[in-house]
């Protein structure tokens, strides 16, 4: 339509438009970093406050230093201030788009906050910086899955599985994409592999169960759910980048959480080490002292247990350590003192199942069976399914000659089926024998033998650490 000269004139006119548009676009991508977040530390414990304040000062003094912003973000993240951490990571990433860590951590926080589109964009940025990083590629795959971009997500997971086939998390991720795409059988294969590689991976185990259910194999679904229930909190370890954030934490809570994990794995010595570090960092950490009573009770180190009990009680007369100190005394056969400790616990919480049950045991050992039964019945009001309480009550009722009632109580100890069940079954068999019901006695002896597992301390109370945690903290 236009002649040559017209074309030149048009491009002369259009060029400034294009330049303007490009400039605006570049300015758009080159967003100015938002200001550093306001961090209020007045109520933090002094050690944490010092650490956070130092990071804030560093970032404030060097506003153009991406590393300072990023490190502040890491410190904030380790103390669960994720929204503020995200602001810092975004600053760091904008100031220094070439550093992998900021793009990566920004992606992680965006995923936690459900900012899927941003997470995809920033995960892509992380992968562009370091295409070999498998954690970054996995985060991108995860973000794409959340963004329902299943095709690309699947390709990334498949590549990860192919490169590192013994990592459970990759198989699990691939399984999730396959389920989303309707490929139930293929998903089952991936979840199975994840569980084989990491038997404690509870999310994979649960997903496998649900996939079997979707496939209408209810027997397998039930079987997998039974395995899942035995360990519902297991997860593969976090990647090394996230571990760097965890390592910054100087608070007591993270030590308690680590100690809980060690205890769950049957490693009380490591649990003690974590908690000793907590009290070394903060001698006034009553929760850590209280938990050390528990751990040293497990280790049967009575002197240390008693030492930490007295500190906990001095720091907080309403400490939860009264109960476990009662156990420490009980195991040393110091029954009157044990009773006193359980009564102190009950003064704080009259409905506490554990303290009522253990006080009942003490009374039983002191010959007061009626008193013991009374305590067990109080204990059951709030926790009627307590195996330990039903067991003790069953034994006490047998002593009183109330055999039928005793058997009813002992029957309640058979669920869930776990390592303790054979012991409970043998006790039930003995009860049936005393009532003259040999058939049922034989049945439970055989059932106990059929179950794998060794004899365990059937009278031992279930014990967990006190987290002293708010709602958002998890075991």
């Amino acid at each position, binding site marked *: 339509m236009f002649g040559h000269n017209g074309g030149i004139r048009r491009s002369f006119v259009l060029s400034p438009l294009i330049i303007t548009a490009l400039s605006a676009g570049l300015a758009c991508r080159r967003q100015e970093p938002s200001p550093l977040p306001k961090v209020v530390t007045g109520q933090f414990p002094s050690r944490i406050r010092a650490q956070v304040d130092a990071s804030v000062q560093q970032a404030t003094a060097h506003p153009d230093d991406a590393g300072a912003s990023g490190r502040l973000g890491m410190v904030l993240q380790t103390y669960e201030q994720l929204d503020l951490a995200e602001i810092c990571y975004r600053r760091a990433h904008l100031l220094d788009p070439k550093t992998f860590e900021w793009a990566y951590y920004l992606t992680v926080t965006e995923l*936690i906050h459900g900012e899927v589109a941003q997470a995809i964009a920033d995960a892509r940025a992380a992968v562009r910086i370091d295409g070999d990083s498998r954690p970054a590629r996995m985060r991108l795959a995860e973000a794409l899955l959340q963004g329902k971009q299943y095709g690309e997500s699947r390709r990334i997971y498949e590549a990860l599985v192919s490169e590192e086939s013994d990592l459970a998390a990759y198989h699990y991720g691939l399984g999730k994409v396959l389920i989303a795409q309707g490929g139930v059988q293929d998903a089952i294969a991936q979840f199975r592999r994840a569980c084989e590689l990491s038997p404690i991976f509870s999310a994979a185990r*649960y997903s496998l169960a649900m996939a079997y259910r979707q496939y209408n194999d209810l027997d397998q679904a039930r079987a997998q759910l039974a395995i899942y229930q035995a360990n519902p909190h297991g997860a593969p370890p976090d990647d090394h980048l996230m571990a760097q954030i965890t390592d910054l934490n100087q608070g007591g809570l993270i030590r308690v959480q680590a100690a809980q994990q060690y205890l769950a794995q049957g490693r009380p010595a490591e649990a003690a080490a974590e908690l000793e570090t907590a009290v070394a960092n903060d001698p006034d950490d009553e929760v850590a002292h209280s938990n050390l009573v528990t751990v040293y009770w497990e280790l049967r180190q009575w002197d240390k247990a008693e030492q930490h009990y007295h500190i906990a009680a001095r720091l907080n007369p309403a400490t939860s350590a009264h109960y476990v100190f009662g156990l420490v005394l009980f195991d040393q056969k110091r029954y009157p003192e044990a009773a006193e400790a359980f009564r102190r616990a009950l003064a704080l919480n009259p409905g506490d199942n554990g303290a009522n049950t253990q006080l009942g045991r003490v009374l039983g050992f002191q010959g007061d069976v009626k008193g013991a039964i009374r305590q067990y019945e109080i204990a059951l009001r709030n*926790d009627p399914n307590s195996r330990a309480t039903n067991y003790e009550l069953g034994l006490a009722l047998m002593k009183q000659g109330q055999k039928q009632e005793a058997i009813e109580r002992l029957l309640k100890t058979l669920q869930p089926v776990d390592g303790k069940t054979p012991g409970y079954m043998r006790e039930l068999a003995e009860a049936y024998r005393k009532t003259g019901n040999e058939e049922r006695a034989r049945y439970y002896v055989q059932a106990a033998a059929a179950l794998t597992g060794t004899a365990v301390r059937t009278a031992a109370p279930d014990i967990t650490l006190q987290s002293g*945690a708010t709602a958002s903290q998890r075991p």
Partner: protein
Amino acid sequence: MTIRYALPFAVASLFTAASLFTACSAGHRTVASTGPFREASHETGLDFQHFTGATGDFYMPEIVGAGVALLDYDGDGDLDIYLIQGSFLNPAKKLIDALYPPGKDWSGGDWKPGNRLFRNDLIPSGKLHFTDVTEQAGVGSVGEGMGVAVGDYNNDGFPDLYVTNFGANILYRNNSNGTFTDVTKEAGVEDSQWSTSAAFCDLDGDGRLDLFVAHYVNFPVVGNPKCKNGSGERDYCGPKTFHPVPSRLFHNIGNGKFEDVTEKAGITAAYGAGLGVACADFNHDGRMDLYVANDQNANILWMNKGDLHFEDQALLAGAAYNGEGKALSGMGIAIGDVDNHGSEDILVTNLMGEANSLFRNEGNGFFHDSTAEFGLAAPSLPYTGFGVKWLDYDNDSFLDLYTVNGAVETVNALRGKPYPYQMKNRLFHNDGKKLMDVSEVSGAALQLEAVGRGLAIGDLNNDGRVDMIATNNNGRPWLLLNQDQSDGHWLLVQTEGTRTNRMGLGAEVAVLRRGRKPLWRRSQPDGSYVSASDPRVHFGLGDSEKIDGVVVRWVGGSAEVFRNVKTDSIVKLREGSGQPWHP
């Protein structure tokens, strides 16, 4: 460049640049000055301020309450409001000790402790206004109130109240003359465990409403632990610090009496820190089941096996945990058929960072975590959700969703402020294919921030549009009047049982529309969080000006169809006055 091109160039450049800069500042959205809801508590006389009783000891019950009930207590055809109040847990404390004394922003005159009943003056005045009638009614109990359930347990035509507390619960029998009597002991429903949500539901199909009460944890006031958040500051403890307590089931045996059948019914076989309760028939066997949302324990799906016997089938059903097998912090419950596929789905509100859970009912008693699929995962991650309800706010026949949010530990951005737990509520619009978070374009009412807890929905002004009451911990409730201007048709159905329970609670109601699938809803005042909603069944009908009839499937299985029902009206359907219906 000649001048002829200069001006268009300049304008075009400016336009292009402006567009791109606007696109850059994507964080700024235009909020509509009006939206589908308007906060109207002041203008309607709903003067109430929730008091937590907080004195700096971080007693957990302070942060958990409280709820609200909508009920027509005087039988005049409009919904009245009953609000639950908190109190000091330490009886030695006085108002001067309170960290957040009521009185600030309190314009209602002298503050009165205790729960409050507000009579709706719509009928006969024609104006939506509320009058405090607590003293006359005799329902102003003082305590650490949690929630309330509504049901006509004695089938006398007047709804009664069951109030849950941290402390002794209370059953108020409606005397049908504007007053109530505390009949807790006489009725046999005494319960002093920390109770949260409760529901009246006919679980054995005998025409009488039974009562299910969720219990939370064994919390010791004297032995209150000092819990800390992730930053090491003192804050409210989470439920894992304490031991959960089994819920309780009371069987209505007639003559105003109940029998505790908790253990007999199998309810002690499973328990967690119960916060939400809802009744529905999840597997279409004609028997009402129960769903309990537990806080950081597996949720429970009590399937009714008949003869008042229940089994927890949540695990295999896929309704215990989220899709990754994690026990979330279940608080509120909304039951509804989100995609009109013929079965009731379950939505549970959870803690910030967990996302709410939508368990879609596959129709056979199995559920699938479909939260992300329906677009509800990401938008709910930043919020701690409590009260929740499905409602068709724009009368387009699709169930929308409103969630009430408020934190239970310090919100980072509010650290240092007096009550740092405030959040915004969220509104999700359902267009039949997906749910979209429309909060940011829904006007000022969706920009309010508070520590949200209870939610009850109902048509407060009988105009065919569903309104809401959202309660706020340590704050005033919000009366959210529906002012949506969509012109969809509607129907409001009040069920009245004769052989079944008098209020018709639990009845399934369907609107029959030519050429379309029946639209099913249920008379369901329970669910949400510690609150009770309008038992009338609301239908948005979209462009269906005429309908073929209304089906009611009463609890217990019999079904009737009612013809010649006009849309855009409130109808009362009495059991026995329709024609038998066979699908």
